[in-house]
């Protein structure tokens, strides 16, 4: 996240069956990954199962994980796999988590972890939270339905009775705005 090179070094060690490296990667990501998955499945046991499955995959597939370029960083890959696993769980259960109010969905409480990495992560999270809060309500909703609740474009369209093209354009505008906001941070080196 704030130390992508460190993450990649850990992944290489994990590929070489280094238990300590897996534990170190786990320590780095336990809280943010668990929080993210819990946000999706709204069930502590399910969230733990997803985290467990994620680290099983990391342990057994580390040598196949190639980051860089369009594949992004290790953390991007980890969150993407965690999201897919959470969506699998939601679909298997045939239900979606209870949907919270939009205001509550983006709410965030300060965590007690104070490592440098955790502090930077918290700042980035707060900045993203604020950026999402600046989107209009329609854009916030599609972002929430698709990214955090795992619905597809078609599902959102039929569930909310919105034309497919409208869903698509809301997503486009939302990501365009978020990107604009974060491009600035990236130029200043805060987003790497």
């Amino acid at each position, binding site marked *: 996240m704030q130390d992508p090179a460190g993450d990649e070094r850990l992944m290489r060690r994990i590929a070489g069956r280094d238990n300590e490296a897996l534990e170190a990667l786990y320590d780095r990501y336990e809280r943010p990954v668990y929080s993210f998955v819990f946000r999706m499945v709204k069930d502590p046991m399910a969230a733990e199962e997803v985290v467990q499955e994620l680290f099983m995959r990391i*342990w057994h597939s580390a040598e196949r994980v190639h980051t860089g370029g369009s594949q992004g960083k290790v953390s991007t*890959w980890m969150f993407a*796999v965690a999201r*897919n696993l959470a969506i699998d769980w939601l679909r298997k259960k045939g239900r979606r988590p209870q949907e919270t109010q939009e205001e509550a969905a983006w709410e965030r409480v*300060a965590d007690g972890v104070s490592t440098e990495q955790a502090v930077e992560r918290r700042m*980035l999270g707060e900045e993203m939270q604020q950026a999402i809060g600046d989107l209009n309500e329609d854009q916030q909703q599609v972002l929430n339905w698709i*990214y955090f609740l795992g619905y597809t474009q078609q599902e959102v369209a039929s569930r909310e009775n919105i034309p497919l093209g409208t869903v*698509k354009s809301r997503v486009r505008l*939302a990501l365009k705005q978020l990107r604009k906001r974060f491009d600035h941070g990236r130029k200043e080196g805060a987003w790497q």
Partner: protein
Amino acid sequence: MMAQHNRCEDVELYVLGGLEQEDRLAFEAHLASCVHCKKEVDELMPLLDTLPLAVQQVDPPEGMKDRVMARVFDNSKPELGTVAKRRIQEAEEPPSRDGEPAPTRFRWLTGGLVAMIAGLAVFSGAMVSEVRKMDDQNAQLNAQVADLKQQLAISAPTDATGPLQVENVVSLDAGTADIVARGLATIVIDSAGTHLIIQAEQLPALQNEEAFQVWLLKDGQPASAGTFLTHDGTGALYHTIAAAESEYDTIAITLEPDAQGNEPRGPIVLSAPLTSA
């Protein structure tokens, strides 16, 4: 529609994970040859590193690390799933009796009633034991399923195959004049192997058990690459080609009476010669 400019419009939904599987595969095939979309994906990807952080941070359950690590490092044994274990532990704990001391509740019971309750307790104990056995079996099955999933993840990881390289892209032409269907076959290579991505549209409507089947041919000898169904005449298929099977010269899609055939039985709908790119 498969026109490039339309696929380019899917880039944000692709990055966000909001495309249906069919559209995702079609977009990935498109991505392999669209410089513009590759650049867009590269630029949007860092958002996905920050987006998951915009949620309320919650404390993981106590002892989660120990359970997860134990499961990962000791997964050769069909050990109980950690969550199932916790359920069993909870089942072992004596149920709460609303804080009321038991002696006052049972003081008035006659000897007969006590005996009957003792009998019931033995019976329910046996039942609890049975339930625990079933829980245990269930947990073991879950562990086996998890292990199989891992093996699948190793053999065909969908999220970690590295950048795609396009080996070949061919247009599929209709087998007969009365068929208006068209399609695209893309062969891509990544770190996991060689993959075939088929997209086709305006295919004839399927009846009953009918399915479309994709064949890879070498000197006229067909090998099945899988079957697919369609939605409004559009269908897609993803197939990983084994290393030993990569020397094919033709690709064809047939309309089959069902999805169970080992060799072509129906007419060719689309086909194309495969030549090296």
